[in-house]
Structure formats: C-alpha cells, structure tokens
C-alpha cells in the first residue's frame, strides 16, 4: 500500500474524528438549545467527513480492515491528530476557542486540498468546505459574543484562547507523509497556510476585543502520535464497544 498516502489521510481524518468526539460529548448539555443543536451538527459533519476519509484509507490499506477498524482499533500512539483537537470541554469558552482555532485552519486546508491531484481527497474536501465554512462562522460569531459580551465571558474567552494558543503552531508542522504528499501534488503544504491563518485568527480576535497571545512557546507531538494525557481517556470511550465486542457487525 501507499503508506505515505495512508498516513496522510489518517492525519487529516483523526483531527475530525477526535474533535467530532469532543463535540459529541456535549450533546444535550449545551448552554441553550440552539448551541446544543449547532455543536451536535458540527460533530455530525465531522464524523461524516471521517467516514469518507477512513473508507478511502481502508481501500488503500486493502488488508481487510474497515473504516471502523481504522477509526477505533488503533493504539493511542497511532492516532495522528493535532493536540488542539483533543483538548477537553473545560467550559464553553474552551469548546468554542478550540473549534474556532481549528475551523480557521480547517477551511484554509480544505480549500487547498480541493486542488489535490487525488480525486477522492479533492471530492471529500469539496463537500466538506461548505460544512466547515458554516462551522467557522458559528465559532467566530461565538468568539465575538463571548469576547465582547460580559466581563466574565471576556475573561473566560481570553483564558481559553491563551491556553489553546500553544497548540496552534502544530497545525503547520509537516510530517514525513505530508512532505511526500506535497511532492506528489496530493497533499497540502501547510507551512504556506500559516500566515493567512494567524491573520484571519487575529482579525477575529481583535473584533472580539481579545488580546492576541504573544507566547513564543508551542506544544506539538500529536502528529507523531505523542498526545496529551486527555487522549487516552477519550479513546477508552471511543473504542469501548469495538474492543469489548470484537469482530461484530452493528
């Protein structure tokens, strides 16, 4: 199999998988019905994308594994999502901050991925862009509402952005699979998205009357499968049924 392509797809899909799982945790517990619906909807969109990616990955792997095997039967060190995606729902400001910092990246990324030589990836990207544009609008709007809302919400939103900021730089790190795929005209050169990303993010943060963090220190590791301590617990839920009842159809 084309290992680089396979790993490349996993890198993309795991972001949606893990973030989708986080959003799914909130279902039924949102601050009001409208946001509850929106968060569930984001989760739904992300899992829809995940299915597309993993079905394709299963085809490439061609070793009998299904989309579910790939999604739910890897070990913690084999998940390639960025650390940002796995951060917990500490409060609604974190949920929104995490979503926003990912959405801006996600939209830039998919817009480039649509130009991929790989037609399957291009097609998934095309379909996803519409969804992610909506996600970005939703999360940006809420960043503004919370940032420019009350004193309390401002401080919570700022705190969330400060804490999550440290995970943004990783979005623009290239893995070996990334580089190989860029070379082949299949992958996106994420390093080129960085400038636009921070500009877009900064614009929204300014509109939200929030300070742009100045930290020079960033965390990375997710793309190499070295995660924060949060991921293991998320996986124990995600994988529970597949692990406890192996080799069954559902």
């Amino acid at each position, binding site marked *: 199999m084309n290992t680089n392509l396979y790993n490349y797809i996993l890198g993309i899909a795991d972001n949606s998988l893990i973030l989708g799982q986080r959003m799914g*945790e909130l279902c*039924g517990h949102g*601050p009001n019905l409208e946001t509850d619906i929106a968060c569930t909807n984001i989760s739904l969109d992300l899992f829809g994308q995940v299915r597309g990616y993993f079905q394709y990955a299963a085809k490439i792997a061609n070793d009998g594994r299904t989309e579910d095997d790939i999604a739910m039967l890897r070990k913690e060190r084999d998940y390639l999502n960025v650390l940002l995606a796995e951060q917990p729902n500490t409060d609604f400001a974190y949920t929104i901050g995490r979503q926003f910092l990912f959405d801006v990246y996600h939209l830039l990324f998919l817009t480039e991925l649509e130009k991929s030589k790989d037609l399957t990836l291009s097609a998934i990207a095309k379909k996803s862009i519409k969804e992610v544009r909506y996600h970005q609008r939703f999360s940006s709007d809420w960043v503004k509402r*919370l940032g420019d809302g009350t004193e309390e919400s401002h401080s919570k939103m700022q705190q969330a952005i400060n804490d999550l900021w440290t995970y943004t730089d990783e979005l623009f790190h290239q893995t070996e699979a990334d580089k190989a795929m860029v070379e082949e005209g299949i992958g996106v050169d994420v390093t080129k998205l960085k400038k636009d990303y921070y500009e877009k993010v900064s614009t929204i943060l300014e509109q939200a009357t929030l300070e742009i963090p100045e930290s020079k220190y960033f965390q990375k590791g997710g793309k190499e499968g070295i995660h924060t301590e949060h991921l293991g617990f998320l996986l124990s839920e995600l994988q529970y049924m597949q692990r406890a009842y192996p080799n069954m159809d559902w």
Partner: protein
Amino acid sequence: MSEEQVRSLEKQFDERIERDEKIEPKDWMPEKYRKTHIRQMSQHAHSEIVGMLPEGNWITRAPSLRRKVALLAKVQDEAGHGLYLYSATETLGISREEMYEQLHTGKAKYSSIFNYPTVTWADMGTVGWLVDGAAIINQVPLCSTSFGPYARAMVRVCKEESFHQRQGYEIMLKLCKGTPEQKDMAQDALNRWWWPSLMMLGPTDAESVHTEQSMKWKLKRKSNDELRQQFIDQTVPQADILGLSIPDKDLKWNEERQSYDFGEINWDEFWQVVKGHGPMNKERIKARVNAWEGGEWVRDAAMAYASKNQERKEKQAV
C-alpha cells in the same frame, strides 16, 4: 366581558373545533384551553429535551461510525423537535425560561420513560423501536389536533419519529442477526424496556384525568388503553420477526378480539417514576439544571453582545 359574551365566544370556539378549523395563537380561546395546551405542549417539548440524555449517553461509545452519525442526527432531531415545540408553546404566552423553570423545579413533567437508564448499546435499538414507536402512536392523532401551531409541529415531528423508529428497529435487526452475544443484548434490552414502554401510553382509562375535555379539543382521539392495545398489537409481530420474546408470560393472541391479551402492568412502578422516584429522575433533572445554570454566563454574554451591537448600529444611524 360579560358572562354571556364569554359563553357566546366559547360556543363559537367549540363550533370551530367541531368543524375541524384550526385555532391560531391570536384567536380568542378559553383560558382552560390555553392552560391545557401550555401544559401538554411544554411537557412534550421537555420530553424531547430530556429524551436527548439517555441516547446522548451512547454517542461517544457508538460501536461504528455509521451508528454514531445516525445517533447524532437522531439526538439533533430531538433537540429540533424541542425547539419548535417550545416555540409553538410560546405562542400561548409563556416564555421558554418559564417553561425551563417548571421543568427544573419538577412542576412540569416529561415522559417518564426517560427516567430509565440506557445501560447497553442495544438500548439504542429499543429506545428507537419501542419508545419512538409508542410516541408515534401517541402523536399521530395530534397532527390533526385543534391548535394550529401544535398540529403543524406534530406533522414534522411524526415524520422524523417514524424514521427514528425504523432506525431503532434496524439496530435490533442487526443485533438479532449477529452473534449470540449480540442477540442476548437485544433480548436483555427488550426485557428492560417492554413494560416501561407500555406505561408510556399513560395510566389506565380508569385513572386517567383530562380525557373527556382533551377528546373534545382533539388533543386526544383514543383512550390510553386503546393506544396501548394498538402498540402491543403492532409491536408483537415485530418482535417475532426479530426472534425475540416479549417478557410477558400472559401475552397471547385473542382470536375473538383479534388482538393480544397481555399481563398486568406494575402501576406502582409507573407512579413511583412519575412522582420523581425512578432510576434516573434525579440525574436527568440534574443534567438539565447543570446545563442551564452552567450556561448562564454564555447566554448573558450573547445578550450583552447583542445589545452592544444594537447600540453600535443606532449610533451609526444617527
């Protein structure tokens, strides 16, 4: 208004309902009609919202991506139903906050079935198959109820519910065609959910209040016992197809009635749950209250932001 005027309005009102005309929010209506509708519709909305919790419980653990997506979509639909049922109720002059207040303090009820825990994945099947099944039987007649906003909401709700029911049944089918372990899981879920589903159709006619008036207003077309019989007659053959046994040793086909006879329902359990002492009553309300209270700062921020924005616009307009 004189008593006579009121009586005349009431007469016209009753005649409109009789003629199957829809009552709209701006129309005159008897206070009791308004109150009864607020009670029933908000209870219905609450049921949708609380009903998200037992299924939401399995979202992070759904056994396949396909099922996870379907479950998310289903719970999202329920939130949507809650949303437009609340909106429809608001047309009667009560705010969503007041309705939440009633839910959180236990003044308003919700369907007591949601006070049972979802302990295995198979419960996602039985909740769809039985609980949505019973709900549809309750709700289909409401599509032609007299209050316009409610009737229109129910048309939409029923369409989605029957999709949900099929989805639940399909989960059961898959389990029953699966490994013995999966089939056991399905049978176990049926064992736990069967009786609560029968109770879902309400107390026996003998103990049911409000019925006569509700019939007149087309809030009800059949008695609880009739609906229950309909549910059983429809569901037993479905269980047969699954190869599952209904956990009722007294259940048998009555050739004469062309209907199933069935065993005694444990009404003590029903009333215990209705009164707030079911397995999950406290948890469910706690989850809703936590979400609401924990979200207060978020809602406050949204309001503050909206009014700032409004001011900004007004300033620009000057």
